[in-house]
């Protein structure tokens, strides 16, 4: 039996990240041996992992950007694909990883978490996402998903002595296992129905008609439920607020950003690629989930007093919006959803980055009341936060407005006017809690007059770039939008 050597070039960034993740792990394990005082080891921040991670992600970004040519390249016997959408999403993933690392450094150092584990896990999570993004086979998809999930479970539990964090990790793990079970069950049915795990072939088989539509519907429901969990859409959203709230903010920042990109890729690969012939069926499921998510996310966010929880619910609503773009089943809709998720990740990074920025040792800055009168204490940070909140609320001229607009246009274009109306109405409700943050910062008197601690210059700079980027992308929405639509066109057009 011959086993052909696969073409490794399309997977070069993955291989690089895999190797470097192992290096960071090994370095952490061996470099500190021989130092006597354990407490000192624990307390002292170690920057090697941090630096290695940044370098790895930058190198991977270079590699991906360098090899990106808009052509789909398949390798590993059709299990792995490198196409335009994958390149764009991977680049965004690296960016999110880099931003997460930079934003988190001071926070981690303050809490004695500045060690190799966080960065090794971060790299493994990135690797998992990359595999998901490039999967063209149900096995690869599941492999990447589990790699990501396991890394995230561990990251949530990074503070082993924090009961809340551990509880959150426990919930995440159990519910994640349940979701994986549902997903695998659904996949097994699809396999039974089509006799293949390869997405392209599955689509081809389904397009030829199926003997047993009930099995297909069954399989779809379970697969969609699994997807819903990963995206965090209602009614599979229950884990989101607890995990966002319970995890250390540095981890929340990460969970709230890059994995959304991977989840989006997951949805597109599975539904738009493998199950496109069953579009009429999953479209309705997505519509139901989207409306539920918009409703629950926006309504529940209003009642929150903790900004991390509030943003968790807001994520649910945003993911509902994302589903609206996907459910159209058209190229425009996919492109709009891609644009939406990319801009959402940028906004989400900024918002959590700001929370991290305001936190200090022994103070999490995660209560809404902590933001009262922020303008008088740190006007620049307040302005950045205001930009991010207004953008998330979908106000022009910020990028969030165009993201929503594009999705709504795709929806209306596909004839789903009532869904567009529902989406707009719930966005209106959502504007309330975003604007409340702005109101707290600008019109309320602060609890404390402590100046905001001076944080590292690089994080501060990146935060400014992030916030102003949201404004700039809103003023000049066309390039990024065109890029997203083009990537989708090259991949599925």
């Amino acid at each position, binding site marked *: 039996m011959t086993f052909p050597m696969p073409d490794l070039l399309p997977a070069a960034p993955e291989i690089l990240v895999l190797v470097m993740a192992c290096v960071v792990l090994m370095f952490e394990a061996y470099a500190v041996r021989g130092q006597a005082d354990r407490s000192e080891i624990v307390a002292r921040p170690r920057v090697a992992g941090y630096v290695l991670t940044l370098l790895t992600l930058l190198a991977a970004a270079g590699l991906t950007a360098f090899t990106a040519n808009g052509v789909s390249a398949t390798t590993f016997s059709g299990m792995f694909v490198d196409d335009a959408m994958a390149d764009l999403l991977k680049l965004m993933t690296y960016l999110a990883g880099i931003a997460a690392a930079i934003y988190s450094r001071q926070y981690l150092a303050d809490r004695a978490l500045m060690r190799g584990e966080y960065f090794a896990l971060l790299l493994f999570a990135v690797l998992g996402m990359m595999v998901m993004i490039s999967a063209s086979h149900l096995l690869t998809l599941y492999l990447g998903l589990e790699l990501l999930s396991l890394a995230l479970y561990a990251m949530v539990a990074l503070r082993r002595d924090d009961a809340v964090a551990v509880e959150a990790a*426990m*919930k995440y793990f*159990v*519910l994640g296992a*349940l*979701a994986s079970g*549902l997903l695998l069950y659904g996949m097994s049915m699809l396999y039974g129905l089509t006799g293949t795990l390869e997405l392209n072939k599955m689509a081809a088989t389904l397009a030829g008609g199926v003997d047993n539509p*009930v099995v297909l*519907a*069954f399989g*779809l*429901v*379970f697969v*969609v*439920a699994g997807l*819903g*969990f990963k995206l965090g859409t*209602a*009614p*599979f959203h*229950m*884990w989101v*607020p*607890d995990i966002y709230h319970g995890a250390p903010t540095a981890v929340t920042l990460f969970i709230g950003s890059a994995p959304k990109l991977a989840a989006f890729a997951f949805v597109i690969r599975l539904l738009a690629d493998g199950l496109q012939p069953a579009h009429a*069926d999953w479209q*309705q*499921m997505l519509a*139901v989930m989207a409306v539920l998510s918009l*409703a*629950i996310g926006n*309504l*529940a*966010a*209003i*009642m*929150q007093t903790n900004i991390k929880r509030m943003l968790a619910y807001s994520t649910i609503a945003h993911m509902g919006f994302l589903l609206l773009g996907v459910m159209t089943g058209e190229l425009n809709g996919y492109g709009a959803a891609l644009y939406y998720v990319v801009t959402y990740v940028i906004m989400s990074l900024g918002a959590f980055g700001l929370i991290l920025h305001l936190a200090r040792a022994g103070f999490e800055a995660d209560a809404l009341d902590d933001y009262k009168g922020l303008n008088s204490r740190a006007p620049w940070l307040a302005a950045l936060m205001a930009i991010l909140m207004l953008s998330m609320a979908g106000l022009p001229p910020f990028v969030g407005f165009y993201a929503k607009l594009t999705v709504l246009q795709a929806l209306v274009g596909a004839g789903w006017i009532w869904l567009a109306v529902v989406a707009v109405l719930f966005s209106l*409700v959502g504007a*309330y809690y975003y604007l409340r943050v702005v109101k707290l910062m600008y019109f309320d008197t602060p609890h404390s007059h402590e100046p905001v601690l001076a944080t590292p210059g690089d994080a501060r700079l990146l935060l400014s770039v992030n916030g102003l980027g949201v404004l700039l992308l809103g003023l000049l929405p066309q390039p990024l939008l065109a890029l997203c639509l083009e990537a989708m066109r090259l991949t599925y057009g």
Partner: protein
Amino acid sequence: MDMKTLYLTVPLAPLAGAIIAGLFGRAIGRVGAHTVTIAGVAIAFLASILIFQDVLAGNTFNGPVYTWLTSGDLRLEIGFLIDPLTAVMMLVVTFVSLCVHVYTIGYMADDPGYQRFFSYIALFTFAMLMLVMSNNFLQLFFGWEAVGLVSYLLIGFWYTRESAIYANLKAFLVNRVGDLGFLLGIGLIWVHFGTLDYAEVFQKAPQLAERTISLIQGYPWALMTVICILLFIGAMGKSAQFPLHVWLPDSMEGPTPISALIHAATMVTAGIFMVARMSPLFELSDTALSFVLVIGAITALFMGFLGMVQNDIKRVVAYSTLSQLGYMTVALGVSAYSVAIFHLMTHAFFKALLFLAAGSVIIGMHHDQDIRNMGGLRKYMPITWITLLIGSLALIGTPGLSGFFSKDSIILATYASDLWGSGFAAFAVTAGVFVTAFYSFRMYFLVFHGPERFRHAHDTHDHEADKNGDAHGHHHGGHAAPHESPWVVTVPLILLAIPSIYAGWAYIEPMLFGDFFGSAIVVNHAAHPAMQSLAEQFHGAGAMVLHGLVSLPFWLAVAGVATAWYLYMVRRDLPEKIRRKAGILYTILERKYGFDDFNDWFFAGGARLVGGRLWRWGDVFAIDGVLVNGTARAVGRLAAVVRSLQTGYIYHYAFAMIIGVALLITWFVD
């Protein structure tokens, strides 16, 4: 210079002046402001003369100069239609505007808003020119609204005066009523003609003459009648025709140059011009013409009556303007469009003259406008006296002066018409001659002749004069003698007096009976013979004067002057007695037939009542209470419910997922 550039110069030169004076008024100072605006208007005037001569030579123009936007079949363009009708209007507008600009230097000399005022009047000139030069309904409407806006700004120019604010609000609201009709008319034209271009509309009009539309089910209306009446409602607002006339007398709150420029000579004639321009449409509907005729007749006579009891010098002239606008409208109604335009032109000269002369009197009287406090001013203000006398003689139709030719032509045309309502109109315009002569000379005698009442009457008016202490801040107390106004005031008076005398004699033959207007004005001579019978009776201007001396209107005018002389010069006790005897009649006139009271009570009060109700029930209860706060409360309750689902128990979460899957399965697997 190419003609198209010249056409563009006419509106753009005043616009440039307006922009410079408006935006950089502080930087360029008072002299700078009046220099640029006067230069702009003077250029426009000279260009208008050139264009007029070009048009006389037979060159007309109709075409777009700039396309604003295209939406489907709807093309929105800036375009000019230059024909004799436009050329006459351009000349009148720029000439009167130029005189008013110069006059303003003297009248507003001490006003702090000097630059602003020049900017406004130059802007007005621009808007008015855009209106008259337009070749499509959109631009017409733009000019229409723009002149309305500037008029609004200028009536309220002294915005600290409550009465001025009331007056400009009133003018604005009343004009909205007219503009709504106008806009509906334009909308109907767009729907049925599919174009807004004059030429195309006029071309298609005969084909649509028989079309009917059903406003109320089962009662078809002729399309042309509806369109024309709607357009005329717009004209009623702008040209202050009964019952939308109520804003014009109050507009006298604005500075006097404005009363002359906007509220006598130009803007108020926009309605007349528009109807004349739309003559191809109006000719198709006798009903609409009768409507125009009756409205005009009512305005001509009944507004004249009101002029007889006014004591404010500007209000007398204002009611006279209303009455004369009624005359023009009557002329339109009997299809004598060229006569209407002719009267519009002569009226613009002598009415602007009357207003500016009245303004000169007001300056001389240190801003006291009550004619009961004047008298014997003749020897103090000789130039003002003689020019005002010329204006008044022209107004009442003294044979030989400009007003005679235009007004007599209107009267004759009315007699020649056999339209429904023409009998009433003929009576109204004839009786109006007596009324006009009476109120004009009542004012004249009270102001310039008789005892000098200003020496002792002033005390009672001091506070009023202070309140009105406007442009001419130098209030010397009541006892200084009136003085003649400076040359910047008197020169425009003289300039305007010249055409007031000769314009009628010189232009009646070409404008009314020659082929001057060409195709600009369309008359269906078979159905509306007024113009033809007028032409048959006309044997030259000299013969008309001779005939005028033995006709009824002349003797009515003489009787009016004589009555005024008898009542206000010989038996000065009589007016008081008549007033007491006439009781109710006098009160009716005093209260202007109760229109203002009715409007205040019904429209203003009603609107406030409805508004109050809507506010209480609609806004406070329904919108704020149920919709806004109700929604907020509902959202809050829902949010609480949603939050309570988040129990924190992992088995609840898992259960929710299972239920979700179960529901999806029941939903989609059948």
